[in-house]
């Protein structure tokens, strides 16, 4: 017999009470794992999305840098525009490797059920998107369109097919379909820049310019050089990540508050269970003291009972966390001001270990007082017969 097997068997005395406590710990563990996975996953998904754009710097008109940069990635309109000539000027700036122009418009469908996102792009954009693989070809003429993979799937269209886009009341011929990028690009309609400018009546205009530099260590210098251009605002991709993370900070704070409450409720439940069990077993502890158990042995026994509950609750909670991570991912998305396309919840062995550590430490802290009470049991308790 070992202390662990004794502790484990003791938990079987009140099966329902033990089960309810384990469920409480499982809920807390699952929440903990999900939130820690989100914390790590969101940042990673955001960085991946920005890397996926292949853009180091975003050049737009003066305004909210976050708005400009996020619109380039996610799609949307900025009411101010850059002249097309800025693209050529940007390309000439020392240190700039590639630069591509975008004209972005979002148009709701007539029934208002969805919003179509249109990207007018210059051919330079291809150089900024090393991960793009186009099935078919680049635009053949002004009536050509390239579809994001999700759009193609949704519309059930293939290369060479015609597509009528209701929101702008126009028919295009599909020259190419983007292979899945697992990013926002999968949901866009791509048009030749001239077509987009003509259709949206913004001839010679761009929403923004994406810039790739030769040496990212020179980013600050290049940014300063670009800022000499009139009426432009330059946002490094890294700053955008920071800004978005700041924006999500409020949601995160709320999540951590919920986590704190869930953990507290669960730990108080655990404390209550163990304390009740300790009070009920004072005579038994007295008996154990009679047959040679030291105070330390009783502390060890109670802490092991607590740790066993935490371990069981943790394992069940983490398993549920893994199983339902996709569902939780979808649910969290509703509450975020900016959601990258990749998976937001990325539980890893490290996160599981950290979560288990937190659950065990909190559990053991909750078990300290009951353990101390148990250790105070007098052997006389057992001999007293009343």
């Amino acid at each position, binding site marked *: *017999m*070992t*202390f662990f097997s*004794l502790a484990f*068997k*003791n938990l*079987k*005395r009140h099966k329902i009470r033990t089960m309810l406590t384990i469920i409480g710990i499982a809920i807390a563990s699952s929440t903990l794992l999900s939130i820690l996975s989100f914390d790590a996953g969101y940042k990673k998904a955001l960085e991946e999305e920005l890397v996926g754009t292949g853009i180091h710097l975003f050049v737009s008109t003066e305004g909210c840098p976050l708005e400009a940069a996020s619109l380039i990635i996610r799609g949307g309109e900025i009411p101010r525009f850059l002249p097309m000539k800025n693209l050529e000027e940007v390309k000439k700036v020392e240190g700039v490797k590639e630069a591509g122009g975008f004209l972005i418009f979002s148009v709701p469908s007539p029934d208002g059920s969805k919003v179509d996102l249109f990207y007018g792009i210059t051919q330079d954009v291809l150089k900024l998107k090393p991960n793009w693989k186009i099935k078919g070809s680049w635009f053949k003429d002004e009536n050509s369109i390239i579809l994001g993979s999700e759009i193609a799937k949704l519309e059930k269209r293939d290369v060479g097919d015609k597509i009528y886009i209701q929101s702008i009341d126009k028919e295009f011929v599909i020259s190419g379909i983007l292979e899945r990028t697992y990013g926002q690009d999968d949901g866009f309609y791509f048009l030749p820049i001239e077509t987009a400018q003509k259709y949206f009546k913004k001839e010679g205009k761009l929403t923004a310019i994406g810039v790739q530099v030769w040496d990212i260590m020179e980013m600050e210098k290049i940014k300063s050089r670009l800022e000499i251009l009139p009426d432009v605002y330059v946002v490094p991709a890294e700053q955008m990540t920071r800004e978005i993370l700041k924006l999500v900070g409020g949601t995160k704070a709320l999540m951590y508050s919920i986590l704190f409450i869930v953990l507290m409720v669960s730990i108080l439940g655990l404390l209550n269970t163990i304390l009740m069990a300790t009070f009920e077993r004072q*005579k*038994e502890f007295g*008996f*154990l*003291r*009679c*047959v*040679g*158990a*030291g*105070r330390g*042995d009783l502390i060890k026994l109670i802490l092991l009972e607590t740790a066993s509950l935490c371990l069981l609750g943790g394992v069940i909670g983490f398993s549920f966390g893994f199983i339902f991570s996709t569902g939780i991912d979808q649910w969290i998305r509703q509450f975020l001001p900016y959601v990258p396309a990749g998976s937001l919840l990325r539980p890893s062995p490290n996160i599981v270990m950290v979560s288990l550590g937190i659950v065990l430490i909190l559990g053991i802290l909750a078990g300290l007082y009951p353990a101390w009470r148990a250790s105070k049991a*007098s*052997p*006389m308790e*057992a*001999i*007293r*017969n009343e």
Partner: protein
Amino acid sequence: MNKTIELNNVVKRYRRGTEEVHAIDGINLSIEEGEFLSIVGPSGSGKTTLLNLIGCVDKPTSGSVKLDTIEVRSLKDRELTKIRAKIIGFVFQQFFLLPTLTALENVELPTLFTRKITNNSRARELLTLVGLENRENHLPSQLSGGEMQRVAIARALINEPKILLADEPTGNLDSQNAQIIMDIFRRLNQNSLTIIVVTHNIELAQSAKRTIYLKDGKILNQ
């Protein structure tokens, strides 16, 4: 014969509210190795307090209690725990079997605290000794009162104690089971185990080699 237990002028007082209770009032008692002693007396006479003192679960207010020549009054909690684990075996009226452990596991339980590595064989031998060789995998809820007390006796013997202290061991048993327990005690005593029994059971008291009568914390006969 060696004296296993020696009490000299032992006094135990404690407070109950504003009243001071003289539970043990100047007791002198010597118990020799291999003796079978019964302690009888009315309720409140100090029987249990005397057992507490002999069993190292309490310390006297004054006087000396020696177990195997060790003066227990000056010992610390940890040292008293060691003595309880190694020298004394306890049998209680309420059995105190852990409900989720089998009979065999209950017998083995004290070895957990003495860190003795056992291979079950001694626990099995002891269950055979008390006639429960066929009940080793039964939970306490599957045993009768008499069987539970026999498991408790086997458990008290697992660490090979020198002294067996029994507090009303037949108090919860019918006469048939009480007889079985008495027989076991007699057999154990024949094998030189020192047994001290606090009891109201006259037959059990009479089966001891010596009986002391306590009243108001004093021994009325020696």
